[in-house]
């Protein structure tokens, strides 16, 4: 049945490619891109399926038992744009065009030096011949890498300047997962590419399982009063678990962003192992307390520009540490943080 489903999706992909994409590539004289574009179309198709499934499965949950109700959902619409430009492949295509030549150059140089990226099957004896288990090992290792990337996103002030765009959403929903600055996405790709040089790339033969993991990431941002319980919340990141990570009070003492908690993306075990697990049954409000200005409720492009502004400010502060007075000429009065209730009445 799985094979039939995959074949059906491949037929849709092929039909779109042959009818609408390949003729354009041919006319433009860029048929050497055909295989990359074909793979990109597959990415977009599976992304669309993941988005549709997330909406069908999780939107009813948000209507059924929402943590928060908002009269005005403009900020959510911005996240819908984020989701579509990411999962339908627009932002990934830009990053692919930017980074692929650099990655290939580095990889090619390493080959000249005799280094060929190993595969997990080579590093862990006994995995050969067990493709699905190999695939799961890759997921675990990449999730470990994502945990530490996430830690650094909160730890380094300049990276937090970018990542704070993800956190400044006060209306966190199933659409919020892809709410990231494009520079943050580029850094994520560089991070992933570096890991790939160390352990090889993830096997490609389980696209439906990849969709399942994307659904976990969407579910973890869903505005629903659901937790996975005492044991479940150690096995898989869920809405309540991740909401605690997004809690607005984490942006101020005693839960300053550098302390933070519940950083895991898929597997909470990393938080347990590295001491960042916070067992908390509350459903807090989300957002960043220090960022109470109206700019956090703007559209996609303004939000991206806001990310550049925050990055500039963070870099200026770093420069100011080395040369005191550096930012004096550029600073402007900061709005006073608003007093915000940090939890939602149950």
């Amino acid at each position, binding site marked *: 049945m799985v094979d039939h489903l995959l074949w059906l999706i*491949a037929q849709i992909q092929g039909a779109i490619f042959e009818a609408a994409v390949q003729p354009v590539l041919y006319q433009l004289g860029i048929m050497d891109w055909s295989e990359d574009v074909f793979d990109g179309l597959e990415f977009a198709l599976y992304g669309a399926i993941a988005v549709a499934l997330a909406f069908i499965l999780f939107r009813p949950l948000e209507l059924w038992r929402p943590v928060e109700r908002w009269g005005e959902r403009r900020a959510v619409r911005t996240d819908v744009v984020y989701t579509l430009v990411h999962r339908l492949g627009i932002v990934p295509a830009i990053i692919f065009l930017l980074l692929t030549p650099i990655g290939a150059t580095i990889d090619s140089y390493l080959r000249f030096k005799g280094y060929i990226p190993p595969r997990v099957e080579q590093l862990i004896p006994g995995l050969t011949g067990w493709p699905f288990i190999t695939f799961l090992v890759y997921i675990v290792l990449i999730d470990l890498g994502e945990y530490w990337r996430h830690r650094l996103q909160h730890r380094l002030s300049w990276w937090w300047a970018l990542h704070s765009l993800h956190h400044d959403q006060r209306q966190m929903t199933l659409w919020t997962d892809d709410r990231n600055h494009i520079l943050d996405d580029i850094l994520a790709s560089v991070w992933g590419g570096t890991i790939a040089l160390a352990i090889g790339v993830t096997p490609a033969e389980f696209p439906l399982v990849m969709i399942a993991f994307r659904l976990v990431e969407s579910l973890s941002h869903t505005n629903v009063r659901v937790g996975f319980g005492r044991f479940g919340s150690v096995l898989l990141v869920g809405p309540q678990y991740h909401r605690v990570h997004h809690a607005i009070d984490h942006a101020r003492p005693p839960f300053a962003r550098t302390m933070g908690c519940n950083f895991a993306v898929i597997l909470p075990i990393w938080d347990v192992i590295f001491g960042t697990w916070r067992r908390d049954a509350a459903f807090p409000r989300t957002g960043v307390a220090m960022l109470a200005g109206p700019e956090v409720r703007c559209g996609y492009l303004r939000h991206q520009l806001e990310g550049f502004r925050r990055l500039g400010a963070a870099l200026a502060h770093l420069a100011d540490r080395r040369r005191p007075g550096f930012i004096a000429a550029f600073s402007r009065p900061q709005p006073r943080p608003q007093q915000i209730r940090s939890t939602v009445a149950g």
Partner: protein
Amino acid sequence: MHLPFSYGPIRPIQAASPWRRLFVVAALLAGLASAPALGKTAVVLNSDDDSLSVIDTETYKETARTHIGRQPHHLIMSPDGQNLIIAMAEGNELVFIDRPTGEIKQHVEASDPYQVGFSPDAKWFVTTSLRLDRIDIYNAADYQVVFRLAAPKMPSHIGFSPDSGTVYVTLQGSDRLTAVDLATGKPKWTVPVGPQPAGVFVRPSGTILVGVMGADYVAEVDPKDGSVIGRIHTDRGAHNFLLSPDGKTLYVSNRVAGTISVLDAETLAVNKTLPAPGGPDDMALSPNGDELWATGRWRASVDVIELASGNLKTKVPVGRSPHGIFVY
């Protein structure tokens, strides 16, 4: 640019480890060796699925699909006919399968092998790395790298001069064909031959045919200097070649048009155009020569074309992005 083979931990052929024998071989045997009979079997590489499909060529059914390695694109029979060598681009390895039994015999580390080819004298084994702009030239006796050349951009298909002195490689991303001297590992010439060149076929006379994927023709190239001396119009997206065993017929897959042109190998006249929907790529003939099999990259299928009638007999569903094919 090339380096002598004194660099890097390129591993020689290694016998399969006990683990591999226990698990991988079992998985492959489930496909190949338990097929009705190898004489009635076709093998297809599903490059986006990391898998190998086994097809019963009498029932036109996929009888097994098994994991084979990361991104398998092409396969080739070893010169002695004993092995099928499958190139795993992302897996960075060559997998040697015992052709008579279907058993995996060996894994050889290789850098991003995309296309593969043996020189006619079986002295050289050449792989191209489409992604990393590299051509690797191996000693075919022990699969040790002798030369690794930078070859921008997107080196793709491979052909050899009849005297085995030169390898010709299309550079898909720079619209060129390059000729590399196998003894020295140095390029002899690199010249434009048409937009996005793909397949290479060297005629007995020595002239080189190149499938010009960004156009609708095959370019005939002079091996002396690479100059284009003729164009044979086939169909949009001319891609790859297959010569019939008797040497009289040359098949050209046209990826954009979804057709296969049938050429007289001697005169290069196009005698017929066959339907092959779904982005036809690599081709193979059935043992009795009645059918032409072509992988349909865009439709996860293999086209089976009846040559006598010129009709598409059936499409065999396989894994995603089928590329290399071998019919026993």
